[in-house]
């Protein structure tokens, strides 16, 4: 179980997560902390109408959190609020042991059985949802 947590694909996603860093200027900037582990995600968005035009993320967190931010970097541009909600729902699905719609989320399947690590994966997506609240 633990063994499969850190598969190569996930480690690579974490290491090479697209869109790392800050985005200036931006329309929305959100910071979220996980009080239990000290993980921290900063998300900067530039919007085009209701849709995300560009984004950047900065993570101080574990590999799972970094990889999750990588998914955001890969998949969030172009999404509107409903699209973000769908992506977040897909993450919930994979963490509850079901098959995800988005193939890239499969790397997180082994996390399902590690409840204490769910928040690590969820944090970037929570930040993403948070950042769309204004819209």
């Amino acid at each position, binding site marked *: 179980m633990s063994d499969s947590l850190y598969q190569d694909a996930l480690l690579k996603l974490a290491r090479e997560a697209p869109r790392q860093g800050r985005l200036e200027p931006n329309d929305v900037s959100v910071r979220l902390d996980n*009080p*239990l582990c000290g993980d921290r995600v900063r998300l900067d968005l530039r919007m085009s109408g209701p849709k995300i035009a560009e984004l950047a993320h900065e993570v101080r967190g574990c590999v799972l959190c970094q990889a999750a931010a990588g998914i955001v970097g890969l998949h969030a541009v172009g999404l509107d609020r409903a699209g973000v909600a769908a992506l977040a729902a897909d993450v919930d699905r994979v963490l509850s042991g079901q098959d995800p719609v988005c193939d890239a989320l499969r790397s997180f399947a082994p996390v399902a059985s*590690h*409840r204490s690590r769910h928040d690590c994966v969820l944090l970037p997506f929570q930040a993403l949802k948070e950042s769309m609240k204004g819209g």
Partner: protein
Amino acid sequence: MRLRDRFPLLAADPKLHYLDSGASSQVPADVLDAVTRFETTQRANVHRGVHRLAEAATAAYEGARDEIARFFGARREEIVFTSGTTAAINLVAHSFGDALAAGDEVVISELEHHSNIVPWQMLRDRRGLKLKVLPVTEEGRIDLGALDGVVTRKTRLIALAHCSNVTGAVVDLARVVAAAKSAGAAVLVDGAQRVPHGPLDIPELGVDFYAFSGHKMYAPHGIGVLWGKRERLEALPPFMGGGDMIRSVTFERTTYAPPPTRFEAGTPNISGAIGLGASCRWMSGLDWPGIVQEEMRLTGRLLGSLAKVPGLRVLGPLGLQQRLGVVSFALGSAHPHDVAQILDRHGVACRGGHHCAEPLMERFGLAGTTRATIAPYSEDADIDALLNGLDEARRLFA
């Protein structure tokens, strides 16, 4: 199978007639097993660890919260673990109460347990508000007829026992809630004596806070619950500060976690919570209509028999309407300690004293009463033994 046999302490001592469940109930093997399983296979601190044991402990602890929420028809975020009813009421007296000011009013009743009196007196003294007291009828019930006169626009909270730990009277919460609504006040219910006697949908009561203890409902000591309506809890500041209840800490500013975590500072009573969860699971599997009927039959038999004892006075309703099997009485001028001592000689465990309800004792001009509590594991033999004991007590002291 006799329910009694599922309680190791009772099963081991067939001559014991335990009628002191109003103080602390006995505990079934299922609950003891759940606690032992935690200590011998899952023990770790919760929430902050990723290793296998920490995962298992967290799952068991939060699973217990789910189990309790399910049993009481509540949501898991509404279940705040405390060390008991007393701590739960003190939490509200601080987190809710400290926002009150001079001129505000809190309403309690004359039959409350000290745990639902003293925190409000302390709050009164801290904040300069007014503490008002609903009187008690001759029958030993809260006099809800007095609500109109006592509850005013200034009433911020009405805090009452769901069931009296002395008279067994059950209060009509619908009337209390209606009065509170019209005044814009919140309602806190001390459910310590109600919860051992069967399932309950807490949200349906329409109250804001509901407090109870594990040790009276077949679970360990040192664990209890404050149920709070979600919006209420979200609006309240924390009571105690420490680990787990924070979102982030710097010396300048600390932000707090959402409920229920906000109110659970420090390492919780993990085994206690697991025990309480197990007790809810165990209770869920019982035939409650059957148990309630049997409890009421025994209560009726006890009340009927007591009525025939010369010089004995029952403190509380003589009928079975709106009451539970918490039965208090005074035997002539015999002191309740002496009575309880003689009962003990007959293997009967009863409580004697003021039951932490001194104002109620004052109201009835008594130093104390002897109290017998009917529980799911009570049987006719327990009442036989009690009546035999009373016979002897009467011969000795009356």
